């Protein structure tokens, strides 16, 4: 197996193993203030969905922040067959615009926790302790500067425009 094939295989295995995927649908100018990778990196390291039972095998979360929402991007969707949950939560555009980096992170934290609350609105194929999931995520967010290490990593990338 070539080095490239090994890299592909490792990356695929990593993607399959990841239970939490976080992305965004935002106006371009809000990046990198809104950088979902910071949340994704930390939560993937610290949260295992399987410990809350197997009602949700993959959790896809999207931060939505646009000045003009001509298309509907927020909402929740659950696949009973795959046990995948997709949820998108809107953050008010004006609030993000006025916020500094730390305040933006707090707005994203709030949106993420709202997304977890939305799990209760869906009838899952199997049990899932979303309250315990929320509690553990809240504990991570409660740690001061929980995001600092990953934020530093992205700030060091000149192409991102921090």
């Amino acid at each position, binding site marked *: 197996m070539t080095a490239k094939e090994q*890299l*592909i295989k490792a*990356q695929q295995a990593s*993607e399959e193993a*990841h239970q939490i*995927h976080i*992305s*965004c*649908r*935002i*106006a*371009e100018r809000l*990046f*990198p203030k809104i950088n*979902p*990778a910071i949340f*994704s990196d930390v939560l993937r390291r610290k949260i295992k969905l399987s410990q809350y039972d197997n009602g949700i095998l993959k959790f*896809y*979360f*999207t931060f*939505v922040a*646009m000045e*003009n929402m*001509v*298309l*509907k*991007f*927020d*909402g929740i*969707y659950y696949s009973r067959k795959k046990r995948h949950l*997709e*949820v*998108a939560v809107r953050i008010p555009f004006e609030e993000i615009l006025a916020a500094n980096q730390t305040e933006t992170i707090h707005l994203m934290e709030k949106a993420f926790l709202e997304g977890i609350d939305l799990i209760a609105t869906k009838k899952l194929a199997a049990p899932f302790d979303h309250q315990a999931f929320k509690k553990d995520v809240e504990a991570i967010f409660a740690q001061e500067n929980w995001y600092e290490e990953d934020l530093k990593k*992205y700030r060091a*990338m000149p*192409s*991102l*425009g921090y």
Partner: protein
Amino acid sequence: MVKNKSNYSTQNTTHKKRTWYIILGGGIVVAFFFMAHKIIPLGLEKDKDGNITLSPNRQTKLNKELEEIDNAEQYVLVAQRSGLYPCYSCTNEQKTIYLNVGEVWKYGVTRKGLQGRYPRENFGVPDLNYFQQFIGTYSECLKKEKIKIYNYPFLPEALARDILLIRPPGNKYDS
């Protein structure tokens, strides 16, 4: 006996012919009826004056589709983290390409109200961010998209690569 059999056979044939004439005649009558009275398909109806018009549901559908044409957005999908991504514009059997964080994977236009269906909106490719770049009519958005796709080879990230791509990795076609 033979004579009776012969009579039965003739009567039977005559009876059958009569039945077919009745069916044929009835069919002709039905055909004339439908020619005189048009069948109104679903989606059309008659108003109080007897004119054919769109049904309320069909009118609503038309209005919605017109609105979708007028309200579209052009977007870009960029790599959320460094790694390998599918490459549809690569040549020589290369199926993947390494992208750094923030590099373009695909330009696109959307006019449908998908309900934040990540990863569906990302075409099943994980670790992508969606940035809204332009809002306008569908025609305007398609032009923006096309210009960006054609100018992709001149982006610094594209020029820095060992291989030259004619369009972004996630764009199979020029639009």
